[in-house]
């Protein structure tokens, strides 16, 4: 059978395309899959960078918070005590020996109180290092410090056991805790605060409950006052956890994160 030139060209074209379909499909698949892998790598790199950024931010915020407390404490307590000591000592009159003893004793008492306060303060500076010893110790220290003001009834319960390789997560969790505690004390004006850490094989739950004013999450977010809340949600999501907020006779915030 003689095939016409036109038919032959068509046949050749068709045959070539058919023969090449399988390898070309395979090559295309490999390339598409590789592109997907590349995108996945980029996403992973982006997540890693944003995690590191948040971690750095959290560390800086923990330091900032410590410095703020430190400044306040120096000004309000130690500064006052030392001023009082100086005033007491300046009022000593050498020609009145009976009062000298009394004033020296008084100045000595004030100095001792200042020393005690300073010791507490030095522990606070050390407090930012506490996250290295474990989340529970850092939280306990923060709560102990709050207790010294005698304005809040505080309870703390924990079955926490530190695990290897989770330090970054702990810093972020501690910073979130500080933020929630700040909100409870400053904005919600709470007088009772319950904190609990519940740990099991795979997860860690941090629960902070207060008897403050509470809030409506949507409204807070709408009024753009919710930057703290937004940050809390963002950071918890970054460490793979979730936040549950319950507003009933105060506020209860539960943060559950994977903690293998």
């Amino acid at each position, binding site marked *: 059978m003689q095939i016409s030139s036109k038919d032959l060209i068509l046949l050749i074209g068709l045959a070539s395309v058919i023969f090449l379909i*399988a390898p070309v499909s395979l*090559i295309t698949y*490999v390339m598409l899959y590789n592109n997907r892998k590349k995108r996945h*790598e980029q996403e992973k790199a982006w997540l890693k960078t944003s995690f590191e950024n948040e971690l750095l931010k959290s560390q800086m915020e923990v330091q900032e918070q410590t410095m703020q407390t430190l400044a306040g404490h120096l000004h309000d307590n130690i500064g006052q005590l030392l001023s009082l000591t100086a005033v007491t000592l300046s009022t000593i009159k050498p020609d009145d020996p009976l009062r000298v003893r009394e004033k020296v004793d008084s100045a000595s008492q004030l100095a001792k109180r200042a020393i005690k306060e300073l010791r507490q303060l030095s522990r606070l500076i050390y407090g930012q290092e506490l996250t290295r010893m474990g989340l529970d110790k850092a939280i306990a220290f923060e709560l102990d410090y709050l207790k010294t003001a005698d304005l809040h009834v505080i309870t703390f319960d924990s079955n926490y056991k530190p695990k290897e390789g989770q330090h970054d997560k702990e810093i972020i969790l501690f910073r979130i805790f500080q933020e929630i505690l700040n909100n409870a004390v400053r904005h919600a004006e709470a007088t009772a605060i319950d904190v609990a850490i519940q740990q099991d094989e795979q997860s860690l739950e941090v629960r902070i409950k207060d008897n403050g004013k509470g809030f409506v999450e949507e409204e807070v977010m709408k009024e753009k006052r919710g930057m703290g809340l937004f940050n809390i949600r963002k950071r918890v999501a970054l460490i793979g956890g979730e936040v549950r907020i319950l507003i009933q006779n105060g506020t209860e915030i539960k943060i559950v994160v994977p903690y293998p």
Partner: protein
Amino acid sequence: MSAYITVNTTGEALCFVVSLFCLYKDKEPAWRLFICFLLLTVVVEVCGIYLRTELHRPNFMIYNVFLLVECLMQSYFFYYLYKTYHNTQKLLIGWLTIFACFYFAELLKSHFGAYVSASSTTLSVALILASVYFYYLLLKEEKSRPLFTYAPFWWVNGTICFYFAGIACNLFFSYLVQDRTPGIGHSARYIVFSIINIILYLSWSYAFICRYRQRILSSSLD
């Protein structure tokens, strides 16, 4: 003279020139071997045409010998590609032994009087499987690769297209060899093979260029 200038010889010669330019300083012997292999391919092709057109004698024997060289070269190159992932030395030796047995058995069976088409088909199947396995290893890798400039990928692409289309053409469209159409003067099979040859040599040339660029880039970084 015009008989020597065909699509195949031109493609092979151009690819040889590209390989000479891009690979002569390559640090990997596996890549440098392509210069010799492509030179040999051109020589074999020219000799084949000379035997057929000038001496009017069958040229299958020269292609039979060349098939052995082709098998060694391609198998060694795949072995080199797999080396990045794991050692396949035993597999290479096993495959070459099986192929040699098959090849010589076929040669003896035909009393050295015909082209070893079964061996050629076996080689094609093995190279297709080798190419697919290379893709599998690429997919399995945790990290992505810049495939558009990854020389081994383009070399394998050319190889799989050539052997896949070649085997399909040989197995299913053998009747295409019969018809010579006025105005074209060649069988459909010849033209299909010319097309896949172009794809092969284009792909290989691009792979050599990628390899050259990679070498230049890494030497400029040193």
